[in-house]
């Protein structure tokens, strides 16, 4: 038994020292034969006969060797390890081939691994919640009135929760939180923090368990006597140095002592799921009662009962929608949410918009792999042509065809395996970088990682690449006629010509694929440029914003309005005085961020059908805001004299003006809010409120002196780079209010950049892949043309002897190149037309058949092809006729 085990081990170990074994055996056999010859000589045989008999007695050294190998090790494995050693040796010998192949494979496999990780995280993998398929997002179909249309009142939430039958639980969060809405004090300088109010059962419905402490109790959820908070894992680590005893401690948030009841697990990242690109530091229970009269404020998220489908949930919602009140105090608000309660899988809400982009990205990276594979095939074929003789010789010496194919397959497996290894390292770097792109407004990015699934995918991709693209040249080479190959002395006849045809076909397909990639990238690039060109309605450059802390507490709302007015006026006066500041103003919400609407003003003397009245987005601003933001205005700006007791004044945007008074000048017209008259003092241009790319809706601006703002963002316009003002502005704010936290001074350009970041991200990736494809295609063309020139050396020599000029030879080579590229471009352009239709939904103000893009791509491909063909052409003209005729 022990002997068996020992032997197995030895046989296995023998795999690794095959050459040593072979050497010893050869020496032993040689001695054996010599000894036998000596003995035979002693027996009186002639030397020749003695040798013959010795060999006969021994009985074939080859067989003995085989037997020895079979016995001492495992035959198949031994052969494989032999092949492997051989492969490594040949690859080492042909270093430039190995390096090029490795780089190509590493880039393409790395890109595939990285994109798979992104696709897997965003599309394939379920959301990071238990039984996440049960979670639904409940909102109306997309409309133009922003977040306020996607949210519900306290009453509506309770009615929906109590009447619907489809859910295990319904929850939500306060949708109108702005970044840095809180201030952490009592620990040195006041620090800004972002907190969000969630309905008490929020974490229970999502299935998130605290890492430390506990979730909110029912009492706390109702807005109990003691304020409590849950910390996010990142905030706990960053702000509290991962204090292990944080639970139960009090922290001072915006002047209130709040008890930390727990810390959430690191796997829970609110921003990553619900608000891409944003970070949320802590969670506080939302008091439904306190916000009962504030209108639509909460989003709805539900957990379906097991087995309930989304369509059943929709039926259920349609059944109860007519009974749901906006505010139970007002019977006329019953049924306001008809058609506005549509559950969709939470996953679709989070990543649905990205579906098409991601699929396009996946296709692009697949195309890259295809191009890389074709290139690898091409390289292997070129090598195979040079190695045809070697294989023919091995065949003649008894290696069977299977063994030769196995050898070639192993070569491409080794290459793609090493390429995959490098590729994973590349992908790891890329993914790590991506996961830390906080400003990239893509969901779930923080949970990006190379997991076992991604590794399995990589292994699959690598081995399929090796099989498909390694086997083709393998069959070609090993299938060649022995005699023909042996006679074929290098680049010349037979196998060479067939190879050349196959290689040309491969290059044509490469060019076609690269063409498709380039057209797609070109269309996306053009769309991106068009997006950047969109008139946002404001000037994002040379402006920055900072969240301002103020204390307007007063016994009455008039009192706090007066107080606020004084504070804001002072802040703006002082900030405007800071050197370099051109203009300053404040607003509670900035464009391209969260927004809200709160009622439906009606032009005086007009009636609208219900549902026809625009629900404008509301901004509460100070005088000077329009100038600071660079929003053009027709009429007069708000003035500090527009106080609480003077006439109510508003500013509306052009879209609203067109809806309310089509064809008329809206300035000085009256808008009715219930019975309250509001004079329109100016019309401003439309500002992109939510996305750069979406259509514009109605907007209305109220002065901060007459309406309560939800916080204040100070916007500063400067003559120079706004970041240079950060210190001065913050110092001024601190002088006025020592409690002002060191909030971030955000360039307005950043808001725009964040808003267009997903598009830029996809565009850049596709463009990078297209560039890679172009390089690979150029490499392919170069390889084939070089090889063709080498084969035609003699022909060119003869031509030149007969009087052909170098220019003519160059023209012949370049014409061949163009023929190759031309076919590829023609096929590619035709395929691109189809391809462009598929990505049409991703384009912005760009026709899928955009002639400029197509033309530029074709031009680019032709140029690159000519460049790739130019160097071999140059080499062809340098052929020495005498040398070429001798060369064989």
């Amino acid at each position, binding site marked *: 038994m022990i*002997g*068996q085990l*020992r*032997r197995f081990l*030895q*046989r296995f170990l*023998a795999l690794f020292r095959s050459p040593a*074994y072979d050497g*010893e*055996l050869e*020496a*032993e*056999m040689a*001695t*054996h034969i*010599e*000894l*036998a010859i*000596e*003995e035979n000589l002693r027996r009186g045989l002639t030397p020749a006969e003695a040798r013959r008999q010795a060999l006969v*007695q*021994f*009985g*074939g*050294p080859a*067989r*003995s060797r085989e*037997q*020895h190998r*079979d*016995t*001492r090790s495992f035959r198949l494995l031994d052969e494989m390890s032999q092949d492997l050693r051989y492969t490594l040796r040949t690859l080492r010998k042909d270093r430039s081939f190995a390096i090029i192949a490795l780089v190509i494979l590493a880039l393409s496999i790395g890109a595939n691994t990285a994109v798979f990780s992104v696709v897997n995280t965003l599309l394939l993998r379920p959301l990071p919640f238990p039984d996440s398929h049960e979670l639904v997002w409940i909102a109306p179909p997309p409309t133009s009135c922003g977040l306020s249309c996607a949210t519900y009142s306290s009453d509506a939430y309770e009615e929906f929760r109590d009447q619907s039958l489809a859910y295990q639980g319904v929850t939500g969060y306060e949708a109108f939180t702005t970044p840095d809405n809180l201030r952490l004090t009592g620990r040195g300088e006041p620090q800004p923090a972002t907190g969000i109010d969630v309905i008490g059962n929020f974490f229970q419905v999502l299935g998130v368990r605290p890492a430390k402490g506990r979730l909110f109790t029912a009492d706390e959820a109702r807005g109990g006597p003691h304020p409590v908070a849950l910390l996010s894992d990142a905030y706990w680590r960053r702000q509290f140095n991962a204090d292990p005893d944080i639970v139960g401690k009090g922290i001072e948030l915006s002047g209130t002592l709040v008890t930390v009841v727990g810390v959430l697990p690191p796997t829970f990242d609110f921003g990553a799921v619900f608000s891409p690109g944003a970070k949320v530091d802590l969670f506080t229970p939302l008091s439904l009662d306190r916000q009962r009269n504030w209108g639509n404020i909460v989003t709805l998220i539900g957990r379906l009962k097991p087995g309930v489908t989304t369509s059943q949930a929709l039926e259920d919602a349609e059944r109860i929608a007519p009974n749901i009140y906006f505010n139970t105090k007002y019977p006329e608000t019953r049924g306001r949410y008809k058609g506005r309660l549509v559950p969709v899988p939470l996953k679709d809400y989070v990543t649905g918009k990205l579906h098409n982009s991601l699929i396009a990205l996946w296709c692009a990276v697949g195309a890259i792999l295809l191009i890389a594979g074709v290139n690898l095939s091409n390289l292997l074929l070129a090598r195979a042509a040079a190695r045809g003789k070697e294989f023919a010789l091995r065949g003649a010496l008894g290696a069977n065809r299977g063994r030769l194919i196995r050898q070639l397959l192993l070569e491409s497996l080794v290459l793609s395996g090493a390429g995959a290894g490098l590729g994973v390292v590349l992908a790891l770097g890329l993914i790590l970088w991506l996961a830390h792109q906080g400003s990239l407004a893509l969901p779930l990015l923080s949970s990006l990682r190379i997991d076992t699934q991604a590794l399995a995918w990589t292994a699959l991709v690598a081995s399929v690449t090796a099989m498909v693209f390694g086997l083709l040249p393998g069959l070609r080479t090993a299938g060649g006629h022995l005699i023909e190959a042996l006679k074929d002395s290098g680049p010349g006849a037979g196998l060479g010509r067939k190879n050349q045809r196959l290689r040309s076909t491969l290059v044509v397909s490469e060019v076609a694929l690269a063409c498709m990639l380039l057209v797609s990238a070109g269309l996306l690039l053009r769309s991106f440029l068009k997006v950047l060109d969109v008139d946002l309605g404001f000037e994002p450059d040379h402006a920055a914003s900072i969240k301002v802390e103020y204390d307007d507490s007063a016994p009455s709302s008039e009192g706090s309005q007066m107080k606020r007015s004084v504070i804001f006026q002072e802040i703006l006066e002082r900030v405007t005085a800071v050197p370099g500041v051109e203009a300053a103003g404040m607003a509670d919400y900035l464009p391209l961020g969260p927004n809200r609407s709160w009622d439906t003003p009606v032009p005086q003397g007009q009636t609208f059908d219900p549902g026809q009245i625009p629900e404008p987005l509301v901004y509460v601003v100070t005088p000077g805001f329009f100038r600071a933001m660079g929003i053009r205005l027709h009429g007069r700006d708000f003035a500090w004299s527009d106080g609480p007791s003077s006439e109510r004044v508003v500013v509306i945007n052009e879209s609203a003006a067109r809806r309310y008074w089509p064809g008329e000048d809206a300035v000085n017209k009256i808008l009715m809010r219930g019975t309250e008259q509001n004079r329109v003092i100016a019309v401003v241009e439309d500002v992109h409120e939510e996305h750069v790319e979406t259509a514009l809706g109605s907007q209305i601006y109220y002065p901060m002196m007459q309406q309560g703002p939800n916080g204040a963002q100070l916007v500063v316009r400067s003559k120079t780079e706004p970041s240079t003002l950060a210190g001065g502005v913050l110092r001024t704010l601190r002088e006025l209010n020592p409690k002002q936290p060191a909030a971030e001074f955000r360039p307005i350009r950043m808001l725009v950049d964040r808003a267009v970041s997903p598009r830029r991200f996809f565009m850049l990736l596709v463009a990078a892949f297209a560039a890679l494809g172009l390089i690979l295609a150029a490499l392919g063309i170069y390889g084939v043309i070089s090889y063709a020139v080498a084969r035609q050396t003699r022909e060119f020599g003869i031509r030149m002897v007969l009087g052909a000029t170098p220019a003519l030879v160059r023209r012949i080579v370049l014409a061949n190149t163009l023929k190759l590229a031309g076919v590829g471009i023609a096929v590619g352009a035709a395929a691109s037309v189809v391809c462009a239709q598929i990505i049409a939904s991703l384009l912005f103000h760009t026709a899928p058949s955009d002639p400029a893009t197509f033309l530029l791509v074709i031009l680019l491909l032709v140029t690159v092809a000519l460049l790739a063909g130019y160097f071999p052409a140059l080499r062809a003209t340098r052929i020495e006729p005498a040398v070429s005729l001798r060369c064989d």
Partner: protein
Amino acid sequence: MADDKLDLLQGTLDLMVLQTLAAMGPLHGYGIARRIEQVSGDTVLLNQGTIYASLVRLQQKGWIFAEWGTSDNNRKGKFYSITKGGRKQLLADAAYWRRLNGVMGRVLALDTGAKQE
């Protein structure tokens, strides 16, 4: 069928090698092969080359070991010796063979009688 025969031969050859080494002391491959041929009256081995597979197998099982040395006529060669474990194995195998031999003899004798019946 052919495989069974080969197995039997292999086992037999290993036993012969062990016995030869036990009896003669260290020998090289040629020496072992010749010795077995001589003892068997040149009937056993089809070819001497097969001895090396047997030698490597026995070595891997730890029953013999090899070292490089010089033979009487000053030729470098690998000399094989039996190990302690090899001797033990030899005893066991030899006993087994004797028993098998006896049984086979008796069975074959019986067989002939049965056929004639």
